[in-house]
């Protein structure tokens, strides 16, 4: 017998529940064989290809397009411009709800950012459409673009993130700083970053009268459907969106942006199915990005290394035409105890596509600044960075004063430090070298992300043959939704995962909420769990009221569902299979629905966050300044772990993004034109294999009875927080050079 058999479901190693088992992803074989169908893999009969022509200026007006030249090109069928575009049912500039962002749908000739769609060419081949778009040769009336954090008038936005207050304050920060024995006043900058999901945004769309059939990657099937419905004046049930797999989303596929809407319009214009796929460089504009920040941190600490004040101010940017403000300073709300904390934000408007959620919005940018400043303060106090963090450990959430629903951060620190060997760290920088003479630095950062929940609904059923069905439109962005939700579904129905049919990934299923905010597993998981429980309750009701059932009369003591049977809670020798119960009742199946949402009472009472500690080792060439991360340990406490295998991958991905944030990633904007000069994966650097060290991820057991029935906090975003700061702090420890502009560049280390 072979020791490794990847085709056998690892479910068979299960002991008890399905939740908690490290199942390999159920869609893995499809993906390896290339059989997982992504949106752009769909080809419809008679389909045409639509290609966006994008603006090369960042601000101004399109004055002419050579539509005739494009139309003359062989294969070009139509050119869609602001002159002939199909009318939308509502003005796309109207924000009908807080999750609607303004988009370009060729409503006029105005240009608001570089790479803005200004026309769409529809042709019989991709090549013809591409050349047609090139032949449009747009002319512009260009205005000087506003670029960068100092581009214009500074203002205080009404809210940051999604409805977060711009200012948060408790205690007297000035008094805290005045009384401090040590002060840190440091300013950090983070660059614009783009999501760069491997799968570009794409849509394959076909109209059939007033019905729409769509293949499109989305992190929010029902939100997208609602937006399409209002834009095109359609009934929701007339729109069917399929999104079984996403090749990454990271926040850029959560809300409807302009490009898929243009695809739908193009299909309407030509009366044929259309495929529209963004080119890589076209993803640097209309589909969101992480805004740049400049963050000033002022910290005070007393003679014992106890923080007396934290002031965190963040400057960011939004577009000229819409509002999204990276809530970077909010990162200082939860981690460190201080008698006085003030977080504030301001912003300028620049000529860019509107910034948006990008993996850990606010926390990622804020964390690298806060963790750097904490590191600076620890050194100023002559303290080990871990000892300093423990000294300032927040026993309750600092600003709100609420207790934490659970917080195993202390265990994360301890286990991570032990695994890493942190106790051998030298306090002074530039004091460690390896055998080859390279500088060695050790740094750490604390990770945090709120445990959020949105709203979801699921349908569950048990069929006559004893198998189960669960339906919910969840989104698999690569994180493993197909697998983790099937595990939750199986437990909810008291079945082995192989006995549950899990239907997901299209818009005719119950609303799973949005796959974002690290809340998908918790939210949709709760709905699945509750739907399962409701089915079991109905089934138990049938059995316990039926004299012919061995469970008759067990209604008061209760029953347990396990392995396709119900058992009396007080006497497990008495039980009956699901199929027997249904057969006797003459039912083909029994179904129920369940919902998942946050518990407002618990939220009122408790602060709910996942936590973690990340330790990093870097090596730096002392003369040449090149940096390489050589070791990372991340320890995370995120409530219940549904699938350790998938969770580990999520955390790996987050930690690698942290490396990227600290050392690699930056969209370079030409300061004169507002164009992104490295809008491709060759020059927009992210870590390659050789940049990714051995990663060690530990999860610390955390039982949280308050966050939700399953105790899930979510792991989608926390990995990036803490990690970026850990790497930055390790670079300082290696070199003695404190770089406060990210990513850290070679020239800054040429001391």
């Amino acid at each position, binding site marked *: 017998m072979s020791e490794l058999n990847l085709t056998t479901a690892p479910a068979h190693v299960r002991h008890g529940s399905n939740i908690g088992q490290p199942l390999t992803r159920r869609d893995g074989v499809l993906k390896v064989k290339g059989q997982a169908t992504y949106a752009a893999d769909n080809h419809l009969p008679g389909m045409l290809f639509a290609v966006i022509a994008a603006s090369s200026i960042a601000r101004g007006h399109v004055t002419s397009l050579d539509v005739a030249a494009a139309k003359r090109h062989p294969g070009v069928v139509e050119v869609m411009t602001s002159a002939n575009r199909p009318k939308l049912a509502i003005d796309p500039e109207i924000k009908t709800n807080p999750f609607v962002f303004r988009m370009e749908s060729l409503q006029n000739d105005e240009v608001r950012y570089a790479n803005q769609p200004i026309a769409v060419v529809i042709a019989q081949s991709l090549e013809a459409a591409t050349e047609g778009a*090139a032949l449009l040769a747009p002319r512009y009336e260009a205005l000087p673009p506003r670029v960068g954090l100092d581009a214009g008038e500074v203002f205080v936005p009404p809210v940051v993130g999604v409805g977060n207050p711009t200012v948060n304050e408790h205690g007297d920060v000035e008094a805290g700083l005045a009384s401090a024995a040590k002060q840190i006043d440091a300013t950090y900058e983070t660059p614009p970053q783009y999501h760069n999901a491997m799968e570009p945004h794409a849509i394959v769309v076909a109209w059939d009268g007033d019905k729409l059939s769509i293949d499109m990657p989305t992190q929010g099937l029902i939100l997208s459907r609602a937006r399409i419905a209002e834009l095109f004046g359609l009934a929701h049930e007339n729109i069917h969106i399929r999104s079984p797999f996403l090749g990454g989303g990271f926040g850029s596929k959560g809300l409807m942006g302009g490009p898929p809407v243009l695809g739908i319009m193009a299909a309407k214009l030509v009366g044929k199915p259309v495929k529209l796929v963004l080119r890589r460089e076209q993803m640097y504009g209309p589909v969101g990005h992480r805004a740049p920040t400049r963050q000033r941190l002022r910290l005070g600490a007393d003679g014992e290394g106890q923080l007396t004040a934290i002031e965190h101010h963040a400057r960011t940017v939004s577009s000229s035409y819409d509002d999204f403000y990276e809530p970077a300073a909010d990162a200082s709300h939860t981690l460190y105890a201080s008698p006085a904390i003030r977080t504030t934000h301001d912003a300028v408007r620049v000529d860019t596509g509107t910034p948006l959620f990008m993996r850990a919005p606010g926390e990622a940018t804020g964390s690298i600044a806060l963790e750097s400043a904490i590191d600076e303060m620890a050194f100023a106090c002559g303290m080990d960075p871990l000892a300093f963090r423990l000294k300032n450990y927040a026993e309750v959430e600092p600003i709100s004063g609420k207790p934490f629903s659970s917080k195993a951060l202390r265990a994360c620190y301890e286990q991570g430090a032990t695994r890493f060997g942190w106790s051998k760290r030298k306090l002074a920088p530039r004091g460690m070298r390896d055998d080859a003479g390279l500088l060695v630095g050790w740094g750490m950062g604390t990770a945090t992300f709120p445990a959020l929940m949105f709203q979801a609904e699921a349908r569950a059923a048990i069929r006559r043959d004893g198998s189960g069905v669960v339906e919910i439109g969840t989104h698999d962005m690569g994180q493993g939704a197909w697998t983790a939700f099937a595990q939750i579904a199986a437990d909810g129905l008291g079945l082995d995962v192989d006995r549950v049919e899990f239907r997901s990934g299209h818009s005719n299923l119950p609303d799973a909420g949005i796959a974002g905010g690290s809340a998908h597993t918790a939210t949709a998981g709760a709905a699945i769990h509750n739907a399962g429980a409701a089915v079991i309750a109905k089934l138990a009701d049938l059995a316990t009221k039926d004299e012919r059932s061995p469970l008759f009369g067990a209604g008061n003591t209760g029953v347990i569902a396990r392995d396709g049977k119900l058992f009396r809670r007080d006497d497990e020798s008495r039980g009956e299979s699901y199929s027997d119960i249904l057969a006797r009742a003459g039912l083909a199946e029994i179904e129920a629905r369940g919902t998942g949402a946050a518990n407002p009472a618990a939220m009122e009472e408790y602060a709910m966050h996942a936590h973690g500690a990340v330790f990093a080792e870097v090596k730096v060439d002392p003369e040449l300044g090149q940096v390489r991360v050589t070791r990372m340990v991340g320890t995370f406490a995120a409530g219940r772990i549904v699938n350790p295998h998938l969770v580990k991958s999520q955390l790996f991905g987050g930690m690698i993004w942290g490396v990227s944030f600290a050392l690699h990633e930056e969209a370079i904007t030409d300061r004169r034109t507002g164009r992104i000069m490295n809008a491709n994966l060759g020059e927009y650097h992210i870590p390659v294999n050789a940049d990714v060290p051995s990663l060690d991820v530990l999860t610390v057991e955390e039982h949280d009875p308050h966050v939700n029935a399953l105790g899930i906090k979510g792991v989608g975003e926390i990995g990036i927080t803490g990690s970026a700061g850990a790497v930055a702090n390790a670079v300082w420890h290696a070199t003695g050079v404190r770089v406060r502009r990210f990513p850290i560049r070679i020239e800054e280390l040429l001391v």
Partner: protein
Amino acid sequence: MKQFEYVRPASIAEAVAAAAQPGSAYLAAGTNLLDLMKGGVSRPDRLVDVTRLPGLDRVEPLADGSVRIGALVRNANLAHDARFAKAYPAVAEALLSGASAQLRNAATVGGNLLQRTRCAYFYDTASRCNKREAGSGCDARDGENRLHAVLGWSEGCIATHPSDFCVPLVALDAIVEIEGKSGRRELPLAELHRLPGDAPERDSALQPGDLIVAVRLPASARTFATHARYLKVRERTSYAFAVVSAAAALRIENGRIAEARLALGGVAAKPWRADTAEQVLKGATPDAASFQQAAQLALAGAKPSGDNAFKIELARRIVVRALTLAAAGTPARVPALPASPFASVSGALHV
């Protein structure tokens, strides 16, 4: 994409005739050209596919001790040719530090020599670029230019040549064999690439139709085999162009440098041979003082073309390090991280 004619000549003569017509471009692996075409940077009317031409994919030792590398030899195959790598270790190391494994498997010797600059303004067709469109201007000059040239640039162009392979080749006096309309000719590699001057649109000394058929390393090149290294500083550990790189080769006799070869990459529109530095090293002892002096001389004419003054100091340091590594001796095996400052890190798993 612009429609173009595709021809696949059966012989070198046919290829040259086809490519001599205006609007033609040679296609080898296309690792650079196809990107340029997709981006609208290059819009040829005709692609002359040379990949099926016979006889250009061999590495041949010649009777006089030199080696002749066919223009269609794949970068990976050349680097992994054990005899070649042993005789010209800095060349192998440079090849393996370039691009990614997938690109090296495809890219050819001739194509590597003729790849275009990676200046972002050259690729951005909305920018002015004298190299892309003669006389249009240079938006890099006052643009985002921290990685641009510090040697040999002009007001008209501050782009760099991106090749790693060419750096040790030019140090080792490589010769380029060219087939053109008037037959076969030879050119030192040092004379193939042009500095921009007032004609940045001309990358090389090649004429329309000219086809590189081979690169030859003279017999002298192998005399440096025991003391030859390539070192490349980049913004991530792999799959990035050089911020600055250097090839250093020494012939050490009786504790003194009998002959030195030194060239820099990522600093100019051509692989930059540092002749004066080589001269000062001749006869010197291989020590820090000599190497420092060589570094000063190698960068003597350097000046920033933008936000890139750091590259001058970095280049000096790379010269010192490359010479130091060369003096220490060529390692028995190409490091797992070729040309990287982290080449010496034990346990390195990746290329």
